[in-house]
């Protein structure tokens, strides 16, 4: 019951399901469809990796025991692969050790089969929420980086010193320009960066270089 229309809106969340059991995949797709969530499901980790992810808030429901690469192994490699998907681990034979390992690898939830559908839906909503926040943050940072690039070299020099708390007079001496020039560049960069106060500017600078 996967939705093929990816243009249905960039904010329409997508849930990825990786489980080798066809019946489990189908029932999960159906459950998520019944609460109007888009799904994409895969029978193996390899199939999932071959798929180009949709640009939308998403989360991953991952089975542990699968032929080929196990879900747990894959979870450990997620960060290295540059994937920052909130992940819910599901398993048919879980113990405490496995649960601890899953959480260490950054899973947001660990559920043993059979689980309560509401528990899974809660975890998925939480995951999508977290992913949405992360995406918004990422978008804001890339926006700030773009603005930083619009600054002239001289304005960037001034901004680096302003955020370190230097006074105009000190910056002028440091850069060997007049204090007037510093003041002009400073007002330009405040406008270009969209900062109303010095506090805004420092925060933006931290985000760009964070």
């Amino acid at each position, binding site marked *: 019951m996967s939705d093929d229309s990816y243009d249905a809106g960039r904010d329409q969340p997508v849930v990825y399901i990786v489980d080798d*059991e066809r*019946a*489990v995949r*189908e*029932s*999960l797709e*159906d*459950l998520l*469809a*019944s*609460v109007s969530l888009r799904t994409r499901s895969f029978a193996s980790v390899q199939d999932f990796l071959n798929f180009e992810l949709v640009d939308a808030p998403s989360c991953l429901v991952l089975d542990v*025991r699968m032929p080929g690469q196990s879900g747990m192994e894959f979870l450990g490699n997620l960060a290295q692969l540059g994937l920052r998907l909130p992940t819910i681990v*599901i398993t*048919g*034979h879980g113990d405490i050790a496995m649960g601890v390992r899953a959480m260490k690898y950054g899973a947001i939830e660990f559920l043993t*089969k*059979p*689980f*309560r*559908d*509401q528990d*899974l839906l809660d975890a998925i909503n939480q995951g999508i929420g977290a992913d949405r926040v992360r995406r918004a943050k990422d978008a804001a940072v890339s926006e700030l980086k773009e603005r930083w690039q619009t600054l002239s070299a001289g304005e960037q020099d001034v901004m680096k010193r302003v955020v370190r708390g230097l006074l105009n007079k000190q910056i002028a001496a440091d850069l060997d320009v007049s204090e007037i020039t510093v003041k002009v560049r400073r007002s330009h960069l405040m406008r270009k960066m969209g900062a109303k106060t010095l506090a805004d500017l420092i925060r933006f600078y931290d985000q760009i270089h964070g």
Partner: protein
Amino acid sequence: MKLKRTDWPRLQSLMLIAPFLLAMAVIFVMDTITDYAIAAAVFYTTVILVATRLLSARAVVVLACSCVLLTLVSFAFTRSGVYEVGLVNTAISIVAIGVTTYLALRLVAAEATAYETRERLLRIARVTSLGELTASIAHEINQPLTAIVTSAGACTRWLAQQPPSLDNARRAIDRIVQEANRSSEVIARIRGFTSGKEPQRSAFDLNDAIGEIVSLARSQIDHHEIALTLDLQPSLPEVLADKVQIEQVVGNLLLNAIEAMTTSTNKVRQLRIVSSTTDNGAVRCSIADSGVGFHQGEVDHLFDAFWTTKADGIGLGLTISRSIIEANGGRIWAEANQPSGAVLLFELPSVKRDTE
């Protein structure tokens, strides 16, 4: 009239020693009356080789020392022959006795270790294969169960929509039915694969079955110095049951009894197996031990699955025994033994009762 047979392992070993002493005496006389040149004392090694098969290590060492002593005494009493030759022959005999004793005891110890290791391996194999079996059953059953629970959740939600999405709900229900059938297939497969088979009933003498199992367990009974009393009623009516299954039950009860006595601090180790007919024409077998027994309240749990008092037990032996006995139309129960221990009893329908 009833048959009675009693085992006293200690008395047995005393009686065992007699032939060895006799053989040693014969060799001693030969060694003494013959010439120095004839090293009859070397034959003591034969006595020691046979003794290591039948006697404890300590007894063998005592025998070997006696042999050395006897060799020296013969040397002193022998009158004919060249003295030097006698000296060399005696030395050779003593070395031969010593080396033989050492090697034979080493061999016996190695065999005992091998036996113990094999026993332990068997036990571990049984437990781990059961662990693996349950893990794979859990996995096999959990998959359809997950699909069922999840589909039921989806179905509820499709029905709760305004208006209810009946087609989707129906599809979810179809999946539930399909997966429920799949899990029952898994269970049927497991049952067929293990002992869920229908019993293959035939008429047989329960005394024979008991005898076969007792002879299988004989080495264990002797090894743990257990006094076994077989009190089997002669011309017992034949029972109608699956002989192999009943033997499994008798074997299980017997091993339980042995284990209960070997883990008990009670020095008295008495095992009593009785067969008899009951007033209503059934055949009864009881296995009584002088082991740890069970506490008040435990008797209700004895036959529960996964309930055990053993440190490394899995708690399925009596559960399986009960399902076997009941599948064969009988009943099984437990009573406390006096002054200590447990009695496990079972009854099976006899052929006689069925025909009368």
